C-alpha cells in the first residue's frame, strides 16, 4: 500500500517535467536523496518504466513484456547498457549513455528484482575459461549474428550490436537473458564453465592478439576492397601519371 502511494506521488511528480522536457533523459523524484533505496527504485520505475512495462512490472500486451521474472539479471543488463529506457516502445534498443547514477541504478535494479523470482546478476569468471572452447562455442552459437570477431552485423528485422563495449557481466547477462531478438541460452545449453570460455573469447575479440599491421576493422574482405581501390589503386594511378609524364616537353 505504501509502495503504491509512492508510485502515485512519483507519477504525479514525473508527469510535469516529462511534458516540459524532450523525451530523452530520465525522470527523477524531486526528493531523491531523502528516499530509501527501495522507495527510490519504485519512484524511478514509476517515472521511467511503468508507462510501457505497467504498474509493478505487469507488462502491456503488444507493447512491453512483463518484468515479473526478469530479475536483477535482465534489469542490470538493460539499464547498464543504456538499452532502457527507450524513447519509443517499438524501436530496437541500442547501447547508449546511461542516464541513471550508480545509486539510482542499484535502487531500480533491486526494485525490478523484487517484482518476482527472476535470476540474480551472474558472475562470470573468464580467467577460468578456455579460449579455444570459447572460439568454438562462439562460432557455433554467436558468430552467425555477431560476426566472428564480434563486430556485429545484420539479421532480418534487426541490427546486431558489436560486442566491443560489452563487459564480462553484460556478456553473461545477454547469453542468459536473450535481449531483443537474441535467443536465450539456459544452463543446459551453455554450461556456466562454457559461459566462462565464451566471455573470455569475447574479451579476446575486444583486444585481439593481432599481427600484420593495421586491422582495418577486423571485418575481412569489405574493408580490404576499400583499401584496394581507395588507397592502392589511387596511389598506383598517380604513380602512372607521374611516370608517364613526358619530361622536358
Amino acid at each position, binding site marked *: 500500500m505504501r509502495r503504491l502511494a509512492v508510485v502515485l506521488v512519483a507519477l504525479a511528480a514525473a508527469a510535469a517535467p516529462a511534458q516540459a522536457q524532450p523525451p530523452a533523459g530520465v525522470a527523477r523524484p524531486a526528493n531523491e536523496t531523502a528516499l530509501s533505496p527501495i522507495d527510490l527504485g519504485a519512484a524511478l520505475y514509476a517515472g521511467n518504466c511503468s508507462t510501457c512495462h505497467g504498474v509493478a512490472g505487469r507488462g502491456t500486451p503488444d507493447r512491453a513484456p512483463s518484468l515479473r521474472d526478469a530479475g536483477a539479471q535482465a534489469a542490470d543488463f538493460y539499464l547498464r547498457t543504456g538499452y532502457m529506457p527507450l524513447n519509443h516502445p517499438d524501436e530496437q534498443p541500442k547501447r547508449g549513455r546511461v542516464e541513471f547514477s550508480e545509486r539510482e541504478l542499484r535502487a531500480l535494479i533491486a526494485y525490478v528484482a523484487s517484482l518476482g523470482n527472476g535470476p540474480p546478476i551472474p558472475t562470470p569468471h573468464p580467467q577460468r575459461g578456455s*579460449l579455444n572452447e570459447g572460439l568454438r562455442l562462439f562460432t557455433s552459437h554467436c*558468430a*552467425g*549474428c555477431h560476426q566472428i570477431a564480434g563486430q556485429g552485423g545484420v539479421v532480418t528485422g534487426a541490427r*546486431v550490436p558489436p560486442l566491443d563495449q560489452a563487459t564480462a557481466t553484460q556478456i553473461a547477462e545477454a547469453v542468459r537473458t536473450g535481449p531483443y531478438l537474441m535467443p536465450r541460452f539456459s544452463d543446459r545449453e551453455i554450461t556456466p564453465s562454457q559461459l566462462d570460455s565464451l566471455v573470455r573469447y569475447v574479451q579476446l575479440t575486444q583486444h585481439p592478439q593481432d599481427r600484420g599491421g593495421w586491422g582495418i576493422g577486423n571485418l575481412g574482405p*569489405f574493408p580490404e576492397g576499400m583499401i584496394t581501390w581507395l588507397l592502392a589503386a589511387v596511389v598506383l594511378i598517380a604513380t*602512372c601519371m607521374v611516370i608517364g609524364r613526358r619530361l622536358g616537353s
Partner: protein
Amino acid sequence: MIRRAVAYLDRGTGASPLLRKTLRYAFPDHWSFLLGEVALYAFIVLVGTGIYLTLFFEPSLAKTTYNGVYAPLRGMEMSQAYKSVVDISYERNAGLLFRQTHHWAADVFVAAVILHLMRVFFTGAFRRPRTLIWTIGLLMLFTSLLEGYLGYSMVDDLLSGMGLAIGYGVALSMPIIGGNLALAIWGGQFPGVHAFESRMYIAHVLIFPALIATLIVLHLALVMRHHHTQFRMSPRATERRVIGLPAFPAQTPRSLGLMLAVAAVLFLLGGLVQINPIWQWGPYQVAQGTNGAQPDWYLGWLIGALRLVPGFDLTIGDYTLVGNPFWGGALFPLVVLLVLLAVPAAERRLTRDGSTHNLADRPRDAPGRTAFGMAFLTWVSLIFVAGSADRMYVFLGLSYEGQIWFYRVASLVLPFVAYFVTRRVCLALQEAERIDAERELAEAEAAAARLPAS
C-alpha cells in the same frame, strides 16, 4: 670478354634482330598505357610471393591439433591446411609479410586489370587488328577471378568454407549438369572429399598460373606484333605511323621504375595493413558461419547478384531444372563475359566500320561506345555495391530490404540514365571543340586580314 659472350649468344640464338626490334619498340606517350603494366608487375609479385608460400603450405584436410604460438587456437582440432597457414602467419620467417603481400597483390592485380580493360574499351583499342588481344585479356581476367577464389578457398578457414559452400550451391544449381558437375569437382557431398583440397591446390599453384602466364605471353606478343594504339597527340601520329618513346633507353627506366613502385606499394601494404587474418576466423566446420562474411572484392559483384535475384527456382514437378543461385552466380558473370567478348564484333556491325584502327579514340570521339560502356559499368557496379548492403546497414542504418529493392530497380533504370547522360556529355564536348576550332580559325583569318592593311 662481354663482347665475346654477347657474340656467342647471338650466334647461338640468332636473337639480335628480335632484340633490336624489342629495344626500338616505340611506346605510346600517355600514362593510361601503363595500367596494363601495373597488372603485369602485380602478377610478377604474385608469382614470387606465391612460390615462397608453397614452401610452407600443406594442401591437406587431414585433422591435426594446433599447438603453436597463437594462444587462442591452442588445443583446437583443425585441418593441416589451416594449421599451415596459421604457422606461415605466426612462425615462418617473413611468412605473414609474404602471405599478406600475396593477397594484396591479388586484389590489386584484378583492380589494375579492370582499369586497363576500361582504358582499352573507352579508347576503342579492341578494334581490328587487336580483337584477339582483347579476347585473350578477357579470358585472363576471368581465369584470374577463379584463381583468386581458389587461393583464399584452400586455406580452410571459416570465411573460405562459407565461400566454398556458395560455390558448391552455384555448381549444383546449373541446369541438368549441376549435380554431376558438383560431384566431379568436390568428389562427394559438400564439403567434399580430401582430394578436393589437392585439386584446388594444383589448380591454384600450377594449372591456372601457367594458363595465365601463357595468356600473358600471347597477349604481349600480339601487342608487340600489332603495336600499341596511340592518341592523336601530335600531327605526326597517324593510322600508319607510330610515334612514341623507344623501349631502350627511354621507356626501360620508366617501366623498371613502375615495377619497383608496384612492388613497393604491394609490400608496404603487406607489411602494414592486415589482410585476411585467418587466425581470427578460426577453422571451418560445415554448418558454421559468420555474419558479414564477404568474398574478396573481385567476386563481390556475384554476391550482389545472388542477393538481388528474387527467390525462385525453375522446377518441373519435383525436379529442379534451374536452382536459384544459377541466375546470379553463373548466368550473370557469363552474360558479362559474353557481352565483353562480343564488343568488337558488335561495334563493327553497328558502325559498319570493319577497318583497322591504330589511333586511339578519346572517349568523346565515339559517344555511342562510351555511353554503352558507362551504362554497362553502371549496371555491374550497382550489382557489385548491392553485395555490401549488409555492411551499409550496419554502418549507416539503411534498411537492408529497402536497399535490395533500391538496387533491383536502380540496376535496371540507372544504366539507361548513364547511357543518355554520357552521350549528351560526349556530344557537348565535341560541340565545344568544334566551336573552339571555328573561333580559332576565324580569329586567325581576321588576324590575317588585318595584316596587309596595317
